[in-house]
C-alpha cells in the first residue's frame, strides 16, 4: 500500500472515530454544552487538556524550532509546561470551587463589574480567534502536504468536522474527541522518535538517547550526540547547540522574560482554564492538572530529543553529497519546497550558516516562482559565473541568469523549513509508509483538538457572558443553547476564512495572545483569589494598564519599527513586564479604594475552604441560632 493510501485510511478512520464520539455525547443543556455537565473524570480531563493544549504548532513545528535554536528552544519547553504549575497551585482548584461556566464569569462576579466582565470577554474571544486561525491553517497544510489536496479544500474539510462535533456535543463532545485525539497524536509523535533514537544511539528512550553516545556505522560513532552536534554546528558556522545565550537576540534577560511570559500566559489562557471547570470535584481538578502535565510532558520531553537526532542525522546524510547520493526523503520533501538545493556549480551539497550555503526553503514563494528562480540559477551556473574563483564573480552581471542563492538569502529563506524535522523523521529512521501516514493523522488530531477547545471558549464568551449575562439575562435555557450552537457555527466559519486567507502576521499575533493572557487574566485572577482587599476600580485599572502597555509595545515593535526600548526585551517576552505593570497598578491603587462588598468577601472565603465545607453564606445564617 502506498503512503498516500495509508494516509487516506488513517485520516478517514480517525475522522469516523471523532464523528462516532460526537454522536454518542450529544447534549441538551447549557451545563453539558459549556462544562460537559461537570462529569469528566480527572484522568480523562488530563488527556483532553493535553490534546487541547498541544496544537498543530507543538506537534509539527516545535521540534524543528528547537533544532535550529538549540538551548534557546528551551524557552518554549519550559514556558509551555511551567505554566501548568501556576495553574495547578494558584488557579484551577479555586476556579473549580467557584463553579460557573467561564473565566469572565469569575472576573465579573469577583470584581462586581460589567466592565471587567466585558474586558475579560473581549480578551478571551480575541486570544481564541488568534489561536484558532493558526489551527485551521495547520489542518489545511497537513492535508496539502500529505494528500496533495489544495490547502483551502483541507481547511474546509477541517471546518466541517469541527463544526459537526462541536455543535452537537459542545464541551462534552469536544472532551471525549480530545481524549481520542490525544492518543492519535502522541502515538504518531513517539513512534518515529523512538525509532530514530534506537537507530542513532541504541537507546529506546529518546530522553536517554539524547544524552548517549552515537553507535553503529554512523559518522562520529562513540561520541556523545550533543558533543557531536556542537562540533557540526561550529564547523558549519552555526552557534553552539547546547551553549546558552549565544546570540544577542536570546540574551539572558530576554530568555528569562520570554520563558516567564509564556508560563504566565499559559496559566491565563481561557481555553485551558475552562477545562478545569468540567471535573466533578476540587480534588479532581488538582489531579487532572497533574495528569494534564504528565500527558503533555510525554511530547514535550521527546520533542527536544527528536530535534537533536533529526538535526544531526539530516546534516550527516546530505552534507557534501552529490545528487545521486542524496537520500530518498530529500527528493520527497524537495517536491513540497520544504527543502531546496541551489548548487554553486561543484555538484556537492553544502549546508552552512555562511554565504556559501546551498540549502534553502520555498517559504511563501509559489511553485512557479521557485521554478523560475531555479532555471535562472541553472543558466547562471552554466554561464560559468559561479566558479569558485572570486575573479569570475564580476561576470555575473554580463551573463544571463542570476544567482538564486542570493535572492533566497535576501528573502530570509536560508536553510530547510523547520517543519521538516518532524515530517521527515519517519523516513530518516527508515520506517515504513504507514508511520508517515500516522504523522498526518497526528498533525490533524493536534490541530482539530485545539481548534475545538478554542471555538468553545469563543462560543461561551459570546453566548454566555455577552448574551446571557450582559444583554438578555432572562433568556431561556433552550434559547441560550441555540445561541451557543449558532455562535460556534459562525466562529467556525470565521476561523475557516482566517485559515484560507491567513493574515500575514500570524506569528506576531500569537506572541500577542500570550502577552495578553499574561498581562490581563493572570494577575487579576490571582489577586481575586488571594486578596480580599483588592476592589473593582484598582483591578479594572490594572487590567487596562497591563493590556494597554503590552499591546502598545507589541504593535509598536512589530508593525511600526519601534526599537525594543524596554531593556531589549522582545515582543514575545513583554508580557512579563505587562504582568508586572498590572500587579503594580492594581496593588498601588488598592489602598485608596474601598474593599469589595461583604458578599464578595464571603464568596472568596467559600472558594478558599476545604472541599466539603458548607458555603460561607449558609454558615453565617446557621450561626444566628
Amino acid at each position, binding site marked *: 500500500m502506498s503512503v498516500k493510501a495509508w494516509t487516506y485510511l488513517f485520516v478517514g478512520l480517525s475522522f469516523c472515530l471523532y464523528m462516532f464520539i460526537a454522536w454518542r455525547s450529544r447534549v441538551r443543556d447549557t451545563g453539558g454544552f459549556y462544562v460537559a455537565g461537570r462529569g469528566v473524570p480527572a484522568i480523562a480531563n488530563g488527556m483532553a487538556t493535553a490534546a487541547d493544549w498541544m496544537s498543530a504548532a507543538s506537534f509539527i513545528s516545535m521540534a524543528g524550532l528547537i533544532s535550529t535554536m538549540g538551548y534557546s528552544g*528551551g524557552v518554549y519547553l519550559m514556558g509551555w509546561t511551567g505554566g501548568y504549575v501556576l495553574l495547578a497551585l494558584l488557579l484551577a482548584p479555586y476556579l473549580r470551587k467557584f463553579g460557573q461556566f467561564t473565566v469572565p464569569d469569575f472576573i465579573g462576579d469577583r470584581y462586581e463589574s460589567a466592565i471587567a466582565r466585558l474586558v475579560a470577554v473581549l480578551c478571551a474571544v480575541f486570544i481564541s480567534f488568534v489561536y484558532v486561525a493558526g489551527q485551521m491553517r495547520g489542518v489545511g497544510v497537513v492535508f496539502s502536504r500529505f494528500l496533495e489536496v489544495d490547502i483551502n479544500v483541507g481547511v474546509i474539510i477541517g471546518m466541517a468536522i469541527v463544526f459537526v462535533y462541536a455543535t452537537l456535543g459542545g464541551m462534552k463532545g469536544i472532551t471525549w474527541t480530545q481524549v481520542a485525539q490525544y492518543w492519535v497524536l502522541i502515538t504518531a509523535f513517539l513512534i518515529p522518535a523512538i525509532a530514530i533514537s534506537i537507530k542513532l544511539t541504541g537507546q529506546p528512550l529518546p530522553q536517554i538517547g539524547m544524552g548517549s553516545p552515537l553507535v553503529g556505522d554512523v559518522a562520529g560513532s562513540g561520541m556523545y550526540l550533543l558533543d557531536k552536534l556542537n562540533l557540526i554546528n561550529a564547523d558549519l558556522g552555526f552557534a553552539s547547540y547546547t551553549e546558552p545565550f549565544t546570540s544577542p537576540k536570546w540574551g539572558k534577560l530576554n530568555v528569562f522574560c520570554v520563558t516567564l511570559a509564556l508560563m504566565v500566559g499559559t496559566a491565563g489562557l481561557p481555553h485551558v482554564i475552562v477545562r478545569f471547570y468540567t471535573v466533578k470535584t476540587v*480534588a479532581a481538578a488538582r*489531579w487532572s492538572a497533574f495528569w494534564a502535565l504528565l500527558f503533555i510532558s510525554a511530547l514535550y520531553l521527546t520533542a527536544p530529543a527528536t530535534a537533536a537526532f533529526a538535526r544531526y542525522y539530516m546534516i550527516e546524510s546530505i552534507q557534501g553529497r552529490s545528487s545521486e547520493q542524496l537520500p530518498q526523503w530529500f527528493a520527497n520533501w524537495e517536491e513540497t519546497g520544504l527543502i531546496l538545493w541551489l548548487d554553486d556549480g561543484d555538484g556537492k551539497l553544502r549546508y552552512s550558516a555562511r554565504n556559501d550555503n546551498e540549502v534553502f526553503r520555498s517559504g511563501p514563494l509559489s511553485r512557479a516562482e521557485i521554478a523560475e528562480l531555479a532555471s535562472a540559477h541553472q543558466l547562471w551556473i552554466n554561464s560559468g559565473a559561479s566558479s569558485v574563483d572570486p575573479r569570475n564573480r564580476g561576470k555575473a552581471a554580463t551573463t544571463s541568469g542570476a544567482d538564486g542563492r542570493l535572492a533566497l538569502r535576501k528573502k530570509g529563506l536560508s536553510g530547510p523549513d523547520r517543519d521538516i524535522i518532524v515530517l521527515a523523521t519517519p523516513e530518516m529512521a527508515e520506517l515504513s509508509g504507514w508511520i508517515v501516514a500516522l504523522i498526518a493523522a497526528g498533525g490533524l488530531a493536534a490541530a482539530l483538538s485545539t481548534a475545538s477547545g478554542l471555538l468553545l471558549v469563543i462560543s461561551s464568551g459570546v453566548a454566555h457572558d455577552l448574551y446571557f449575562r450582559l444583554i438578555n439575562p432572562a433568556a431561556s435555557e433552550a434559547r441560550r443553547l441555540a445561541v451557543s450552537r449558532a455562535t460556534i457555527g459562525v466562529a467556525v466559519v470565521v476561523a475557516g476564512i482566517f485559515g484560507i486567507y491567513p493574515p500575514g502576521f500570524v506569528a506576531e499575533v500569537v506572541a500577542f495572545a500570550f502577552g495578553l493572557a499574561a498581562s490581563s487574566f493572570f494577575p487579576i485572577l490571582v489577586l481575586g483569589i488571594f486578596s480580599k482587599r483588592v476592589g473593582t476600580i484598582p483591578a479594572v485599572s490594572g487590567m487596562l494598564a497591563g493590556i494597554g502597555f503590552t499591546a502598545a509595545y507589541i504593535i509598536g515593535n512589530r508593525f511600526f519599527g519601534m526599537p525594543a526600548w524596554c531593556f531589549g526585551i522582545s515582543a514575545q517576552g513583554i508580557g512579563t513586564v505587562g504582568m508586572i505593570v498590572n500587579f503594580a497598578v492594581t496593588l498601588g491603587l488598592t489602598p485608596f479604594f474601598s474593599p469589595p462588598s461583604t458578599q464578595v468577601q464571603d464568596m472568596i472565603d467559600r472558594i478558599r475552604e*476545604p472541599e466539603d465545607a458548607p458555603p460561607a453564606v449558609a454558615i453565617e445564617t446557621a450561626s444566628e441560632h
Partner: protein
Amino acid sequence: MGTNGSTSSQYWRANVRLMLGLLAVWAFAGLGCGVLFADTLADLRFWGFPLGFWFAQQGAIVVFVALILVYAIALNRLDARHAIGRAQKPQV
C-alpha cells in the same frame, strides 16, 4: 468568619505555606537552573548533557510534573483532615 473560622484559617495558612514552598522550587528549577544559572551550569556535565542545557530542555519539565503531584497529594490529604476535624466538632 462563622463558627469554624479557626479551622478554615489554619487550613488556608497551611495551604499557602505549601504553595509558596512549591513555587520556590518551581522558580529555582525552571527560571533559576534553566535560565539564570544556565551558563554556570553549562560547565558541569550530567552524563552526555551540559547541566544547564539539560535543565532547560528536560529537568525543569520533570520537576514541574513532580511539583503538581506533590501538591495534589498534600492538598487532598489536608482537605480530608479538615473535613474530619469539622465533622467531629459539635455543630452549633
